[in-house]
């Protein structure tokens, strides 16, 4: 499932995938795959992304149960 919230937060900060990747310390490909929902990040990576974008885990990664 695509992570639109992450993409929106990144765009809000006027960051490219490569810039966010550099802030977090991962590759551009990893950010791209997380946004596409093709890679499930670990909690540590989720937290690093949240810290970089000034958001909470709820803001970026919460999904309502089906």
């Amino acid at each position, binding site marked *: 499932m695509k992570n639109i919230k992450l993409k929106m937060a990144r765009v809000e900060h006027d*960051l490219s995938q490569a810039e966010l990747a550099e802030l977090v310390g991962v*590759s551009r490909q990893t950010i791209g*795959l997380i946004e596409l929902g*093709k890679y499930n990040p670990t909690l540590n990576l989720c937290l690093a992304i949240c810290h970089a974008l000034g958001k909470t885990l709820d803001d970026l990664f919460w999904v309502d149960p089906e």
Partner: protein
Amino acid sequence: MGFFKKSQVKDEWVINTRNKIYAEVYVLVVVLCSISAIVKYFVYDLNMEHVLTELIILITVGIYYLYRSIRLGIFSAEVELHDRKNKWSMQKKNLFMSVGLGIGIALFMGINSSVRYADGVQQSIYYFLITGFGSLMIYLPFFVVILVAGNEMAKRNSDRAMNKMLDNDEFGDDDEKH
């Protein structure tokens, strides 16, 4: 009535730990094969055909890792992470490594030839120069092609594979900020 509904959650700790063990097993196999090949070749003085199995295992796992890392796109991601963290880019390192290896092997061949086959100082120098130069002409381009051009080609293919993966997005997401 959720009694019979199977949980979609997999035990990540078990999976990650198992993957860690697989990685350790891979290293163990490579180390054991290398030790076996070295012992057979240098200690027992056996021919190349006796270490062929070990060489095939070592070369096959190397090629398989390279192929999979290119197809899954992690090759270019690894290069990107390396280049970001290090002062010298991977390409520059490979270039210096190939030049170093080429010169190193040429020197070894030259010295080996002059020590083993030459009579007198003048012939030693002559053999050293001839063999060294000849080896340099062979090994330098070989390592440049394998390490520098091979690395560049692998990176391009990996980039292409990754872009294909990232392009499967109907919103047209890419590396742009919008």
